[in-house]
Structures are given as structure tokens and as C-alpha cells.
């Protein structure tokens, strides 16, 4: 085993590889509820060439590799289920290019959401990317690999839909470019009009290769932003309201939240409507269209616009939404996890009832939030449960609630987002056999030695 450490040190330098128990311990778990499993090594490459050498080493030694960004998916996707090498990519932190006219950026795998946001703010103030609400340490590459969402998801889809190209080190060690960058110097398309090979990597949770570079679409950054919150106590109305709101095509982001703490929020469904504009006139026009679209619910007293105090407005307008992280300490215990299925809008009422029902059944505190995806074609609904990490019983109850939520959603036809191994199993059990076989064939073809993040998307 020490030979592998020596080989890793030779590749990346002595400072950037470790098999100390402390690194093995910390990189063997995430903040969620998945059972930890220790890494054997942790390595931090700085270049694609170093990644390639590590992958070749892992093939030679038949050791697993788990690529890792910040490890904040909460569903154990970077827990090395079969040990091996955890590859922390955060030293690959260069923003390589911004093509302002074609509105894209090319970044290395370890570039954080925070770093890109800041870079664009300072150097390209007219551009932005779809910043998720996850903490700013999360990386661009990991976010697209898990089909993450962000502030622009209502307008433009999953963050993975915003990928404009990839550089990937395949499990065999070959370096492969995906999209227009495979032909020439530009990163303007991840596929079209070519066969879209990005699908071999996006959503595969690091089981088919190590993404080393990402081309990412950027979007106009408007000068003014504002927030309205529509509140209803009738969850059955939410799909209709969302349908009407999205019909306006005026809304940057639509997020729905319901939670039991503080108590004043209990029993209400809050729809955050984010608006952006380049002028007060444009904003006023958009606001009026939004008001008009839901006027019937206001008139019938089924819904109303909430007065937003300054602190709340600041918290919601923040992107990433820092205050959201504090949910982990509701139980003064530093933990929360959520099952975040992607569902059609019509399933919202059932999910909204279920998240509360499971909280009562399993005696845990819940938060149920959702984000509308691409104008309402679907939405992410989060069954979030907080827990005290010092209370094993409560952790068990939260785990049970999440499992039940996953079963419930899968039975309804929803897709589990960034699924843990338990949730992957739930989906694969329900998957069309030929689809499952295709996944297995693709995996076998790309990763003949089964070294990439083994245990995940493992078709049996």
C-alpha cells in the first residue's frame, strides 16, 4: 500500500498525497446520512496530466478512484464505498477562458461556484452563471455531474443543460474532449450537431471518468433584481399557480418552500418569484404580468403576496443563499439531508403532504422546498430532514424518512436526484431492463476494470 502512496507522491508531489488516518477519515464521509467508508489515499492533482497518471496507476493497481469536488451532495456520492483513492480536485482551480460574445466560460474541475461568481462579477459584470444555492465551495464540475440546479434553472434548465463541452480523463487514462472543443478551439457546444457524448458522463456520478475541464454557458446579468413571495395555504393550488406564473415567461427563478419552523410558516406554501430587469420600467412590466397571472387566486383569497422584511429579502436574494445552510443546525446538531426527486408539477401536492407526514411519523423536523425547472417542465422537490449528528437514534429516523420518501416518489414516477446508493437501487429496480442493460454496457465499455467510483450505478 505504501508503494501506491509513493507513486502518488511522485505524480503530484509529497505535499499533495496522504494516507494519514485523518485524511482517510475525513474524506471517508460527507455531512449526510450515508454510512462512511474510509479512503485508503487522498490525492490532490493540479493538472489533467496528473489526473491521467493517477488513473493509469489506479488501473495498474486495480484501485478505486473517487473524484471529489466539495462533497456536499449530502448523499454519499464521494464516499469511497470500496476504499481506494479519493481525488480532491480543488487544486485544479484555474478559470481558463471567458468568451464574452459567445457567453461561455471554460474552467478546470476544481473551480468553485464562488470563485466563478466572483470572477465574473469583477471581470465580466454583464455575465453570470447559474449559481446553485449550495455553499460556494461546491465545484462547477461536480454540480454538472449531478445535474445540479441554480438560480437560472427556471429559465434555462438543469445546470448540466448549460454545459458547453467537457474534457474528461477516461477510466482507461485516455484524455477525451467532448463537443466543439474536440474539433477546434471553441467551447460553444457540448454536442449538437455532433452526437452528444456528454451524456456518457453527466449524471454518472463519476463512474465513467474524471471530468477535468468544463465549458459552461453564461447568461446576461441584469442590473436590477427583485423578489415577490406569493403565499397560499392550499398545496393543491400550487401546480396551477406555477403553471400560470411560468406562462408569463418573465420569471428568473421560481422556488417553493414550506417548513414547520418557525411556527408561523407552518401550513403555508411560499412561492418565491425572482425577477430581474435592466430598467425600472422593465421590472414594473414584469411585476405587473406576474400580478395579473395570479390575480384570480388573490381575489379569491386563496393566495396573497407576502410582506418581506429586509432581513428575509436579503437572505433570499443572496445567491448562494447562505441562510439555507443554517437549516443544518435547527436541531443544534449539524446535520440535514434531503431526497430531491425531480417530479412533474402535478405531483407537488402529494409530495408536500408526504414530507410533513413522514416528519410526524419519524419524529424529525422537515423542510420541503422545490425549484421549478425550465419553465415548469418539471421541478425538484426536496424532502429535507434535519438531524442531530450526536443522536444516532434521530439519524436513523431521518434515514428511514428519506428512504420512505424515495420509495414514495419512485412509485409515483419521479426521478431521484443525486441519488445515494440506496436510491440508485430503488430506481434501477424500477427501470426498464433494456435501459438498465444499456447502462451496464456503457459502464463496462468505458471502465473495464471497474475502478471509477465503484458501488455507484452498479448494475447487478
Amino acid at each position: 500500500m505504501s508503494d501506491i502512496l509513493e507513486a502518488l507522491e511522485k505524480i503530484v508531489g509529497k505535499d499533495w498525497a496522504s494516507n494519514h488516518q485523518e485524511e482517510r477519515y475525513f474524506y471517508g464521509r460527507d455531512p449526510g446520512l450515508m454510512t462512511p467508508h474510509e479512503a485508503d489515499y487522498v490525492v490532490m492533482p493540479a493538472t489533467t496530466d496528473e489526473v491521467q497518471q493517477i488513473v493509469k496507476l489506479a488501473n495498474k493497481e486495480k484501485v478505486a478512484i473517487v473524484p471529489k469536488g466539495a462533497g456536499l451532495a449530502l448523499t454519499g456520492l464521494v464516499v469511497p464505498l470500496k476504499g481506494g483513492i479519493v481525488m480532491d480536485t480543488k487544486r485544479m482551480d484555474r478559470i481558463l477562458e471567458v468568451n464574452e460574445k459567445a457567453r461561455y466560460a471554460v474552467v478546470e474541475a476544481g473551480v468553485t461556484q464562488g470563485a466563478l461568481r466572483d470572477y465574473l462579477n469583477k471581470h465580466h459584470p454583464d455575465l453570470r452563471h447559474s449559481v446553485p444555492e449550495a455553499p460556494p465551495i461546491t465545484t462547477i464540475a461536480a454540480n454538472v455531474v449531478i445535474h445540479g440546479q441554480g438560480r437560472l434553472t427556471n429559465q434555462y434548465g438543469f445546470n448540466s443543460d448549460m454545459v458547453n463541452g467537457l474534457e474528461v480523463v477516461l477510466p482507461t487514462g485516455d484524455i477525451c474532449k467532448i463537443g466543439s472543443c474536440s474539433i477546434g478551439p471553441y467551447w460553444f457546444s457540448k454536442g449538437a450537431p455532433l452526437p452528444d457524448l456528454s451524456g456518457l458522463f453527466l449524471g454518472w456520478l463519476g463512474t465513467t471518468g474524471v471530468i477535468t475541464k468544463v465549458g459552461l454557458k453564461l447568461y446576461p446579468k441584469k442590473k436590477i433584481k427583485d423578489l415577490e413571495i406569493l403565499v397560499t395555504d392550499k398545496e393543491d393550488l400550487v401546480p396551477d399557480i406555477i403553471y400560470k406564473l411560468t406562462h408569463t415567461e418573465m420569471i428568473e427563478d421560481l422556488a417553493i418552500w414550506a417548513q414547520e419552523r418557525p411556527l408561523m410558516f407552518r401550513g403555508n406554501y411560499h412561492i418565491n418569484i425572482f425577477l430581474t430587469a435592466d430598467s425600472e420600467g422593465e421590472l414594473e412590466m414584469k411585476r405587473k404580468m406576474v400580478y395579473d397571472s395570479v390575480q384570480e387566486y388573490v381575489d379569491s383569497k386563496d393566495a396573497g403576496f407576502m410582506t418581506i422584511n429586509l432581513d428575509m429579502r436579503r437572505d433570499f436574494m443572496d445567491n448562494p443563499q447562505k441562510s439555507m445552510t443554517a437549516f443544518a443546525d435547527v436541531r443544534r446538531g449539524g446535520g440535514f439531508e434531503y431526497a430531491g426527486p425531480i417530479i412533474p408539477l402535478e405531483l407537488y401536492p402529494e409530495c408536500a403532504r408526504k414530507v410533513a407526514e413522514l416528519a410526524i411519523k419519524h419524529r424529525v423536523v422537515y423542510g420541503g422546498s422545490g425549484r421549478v425547472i425550465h419553465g415548469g417542465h418539471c421541478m425538484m422537490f426536496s424532502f429535507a430532514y434535519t438531524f442531530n449528528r450526536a443522536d444516532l437514534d434521530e439519524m436513523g429516523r431521518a434515514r428511514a424518512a428519506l428512504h420512505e420518501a424515495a420509495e414514495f416518489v419512485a412509485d409515483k414516477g419521479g426521478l431521484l436526484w443525486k441519488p445515494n446508493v440506496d436510491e440508485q437501487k430503488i430506481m434501477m429496480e424500477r427501470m426498464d431492463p433494456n435501459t438498465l442493460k444499456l447502462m451496464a454496457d456503457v459502464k463496462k465499455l468505458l471502465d473495464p476494470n471497474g475502478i471509477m467510483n465503484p458501488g455507484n450505478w452498479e448494475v447487478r
Partner: protein
Amino acid sequence: MAQDYAGQIHRCFRCGYCKFPNDYSSFNCPAYRRFRFDTYSTSGRLWLTYAWLKGEIDWSEHLAEILYTCTMCKNCTEHCPMKFAADIVDWIVGARSDMVEKGKIPPRVAHFFEAVYGYGNPYKLLRDDRAAWANGTKIYAPGDEYLLYVGCLGSYDENAQKMARSVVELLNTAGVSFGILGSDEECCGNEVYLLGEMGLFQTLAEKNIKKFRELGIKKIITICPHGYNVLKNRYPALGADFEIYHYTQLLNDLVQKKKIKPLRRNDKVTYHDPCFLGRYNNLYEEPRQVLQYIPGLTLVEMEKNRADSFCCGGGSGNFIMDLLAGGKESPARVRVREAYATGADTLAVACPSCLVMFTDAVKGEELDGKLAVKDIGQIVTESLSAKKD
């Protein structure tokens, strides 16, 4: 002392906000920036300490090193979104204290304690030489308005001694009634406390308080923000009731009252907020105001300033223990590059630890002659003798 940290430490979610400044532009946790393993971040320390307490990992020198590479700069406290943010430093002190009690600390930390215990300073230099820098500076006598508490760095480090001399010169110029303790001065204990040696800290603090009381001292000026912090925030719990000032506070007052009249200097200066003045004590403006009183001086800000200031890496005894080691990514060298990027010709400091760290870093970055590191006292002193344009 937050000895009950063991019942709270599991609350860290490891979200990583603690690693950043407000704009998320780069990593602002000195140890994480230097080592880049997540274990060296605040969440790494808290999770590993919790694992150690639960018996999931054994104590090791590596674990102790991870715990002690924290410079206690409080960037984590500033940016952590959780309600417990203000307690993080106490938790780390609590964990260190446990390691001290068990005798399981890095050798360099043990040497630090031995030196302070035996010599009253971390350098193992003679007590009698503590005032060798002072050139006849008056020893405090009852009736003097202020005690000038110099601190270990100001007393023994060659660069920091210049800082002490400048402050003395300025106080004399302004006619301030003050004196020093000379060879009777003892370590303030700020680093000893942060390193977790509570018994030694208590001994030092009680000894100092007793001495101050015996001499009838009411007001104390410190040269070092570390001393300012511990005298102001830790000593009162042991019965102290002195008025504590950092020299930049007094200097600001003296300049405004025109008791000190700086002359024109055409310097371009950037100011580095030391952790123990800024994040610990919310003193951001006084040092800047002093600089802005100097005619002709241009003050430019580094991107990361005030509560986002990037620690020099010298806190928590690392100005001497150097657990963060040197190298291009050492915090001091990173910060010096940030200072140089402003176009400033002078990096102004208000802390002897920062002065020492940055002076070395300028050499490492080969910026000698391009970026001078000076404390605010030195800059003002030089301005007194500057020629008028």
C-alpha cells in the same frame, strides 16, 4: 473557557463558508490555503476532534499538527452561517486544552510553553535583556498616566523592536506620560491561552494583573494587538479592570489633536488589518485614520480588507513555531503578493507579528526594494522628519 466544547463540536455541517472571504474570490483560511486538504480547514479540525473524542480515530502527531496549524484568525467565525459561529475559537482552544492536559501536543508547541514558563517569553531569551531595545525609555512609576506594555515580540525581535522604539518616540513627541516595565515585563499569555495551556495562562495573567495593581496602573497601551486582545478580553475574567488601548488608537487621538504633526510623504500605502485588532476587536478605522492624516500619503486597499483580511499566518504562536511552514503558498507570502498587486510601495502593519512575518515574506517573494513593510508608528515617525514639498 469553553471546556464544554465536546458537547457542541458535532454541530459543524462542514459547509465550507469558513474557508472564504465575503466575495468567495479565494480561500481565506490560512491553514487551508496553505495545505489544501479539507482536514486543515475549520470543519476538518472540528470533525476530527469530534472523531477523536468519540474514539473513532487515535491521537497522532498529524492530528495535533492539524489542530495547531490554525492561526486563530477568526475568518471562520466571521463567515460561518451558523448560530455557534462565535464559539468556534473557544471550541478549538478547548480541544487544544485537552491535548495539553494529556501531554499530546506537537514538539514545537511544547517548546513554546517551556520557553514562556522558564523565561517569560517564547524565544528563551534572558529576562534581563527584555528591555535591551529601550535605550533608556522611562520605567513606569506611580503617577504616570499609561503603562506601555511592549510584549515579547517588541522586546526581543529585531524588527519589532524598531516598532517599539517608534511608538516610544511618538509618545514622547506628544508629551504623553508613560513608562515601560522593562525587565519586569512578562509574556501577556495571549498565545499561551490560544494554544490551550490554561494553567500557564492563568499564572501569567494573575502575575501581570498583580504587578499592574501594585504599581497603581490604570491605563495600558499595547504595541501588539495580541496583547491588546488578551488584556482587554481575557484578563477581566481574572479580576482586571484596566483601560486598554492599542497604540494606533492613542496615535489617532494624538494626531487628531495635533499633538503629533506628520509632514508630507508621497508614499502609496496599503494597510493590513491584523486579526487581533480587526476581527477580534472591531478596530478597523483608527489605523487607517492615522495614515490618512499624513499629507501626501495615498492609502490603497487590498481586495481583502477589514473583516476579510487574510491572516499573515503568525497567529497562535506561529510567528515563532511556524507550523504553517514557508513556501510560496504560505499565508504571509500570499498576502505580500496581494499587497504588491495594489501598486503600493509600503505595506503598513499595526502588529509586530505581522511585521515579522511579512518582512520575511518580502524576501521570499524577492520584493526587497519594491515593497517596504513598516508599522504605522514607523511611518508616522518617519513623517515627522520628512521634508516639506
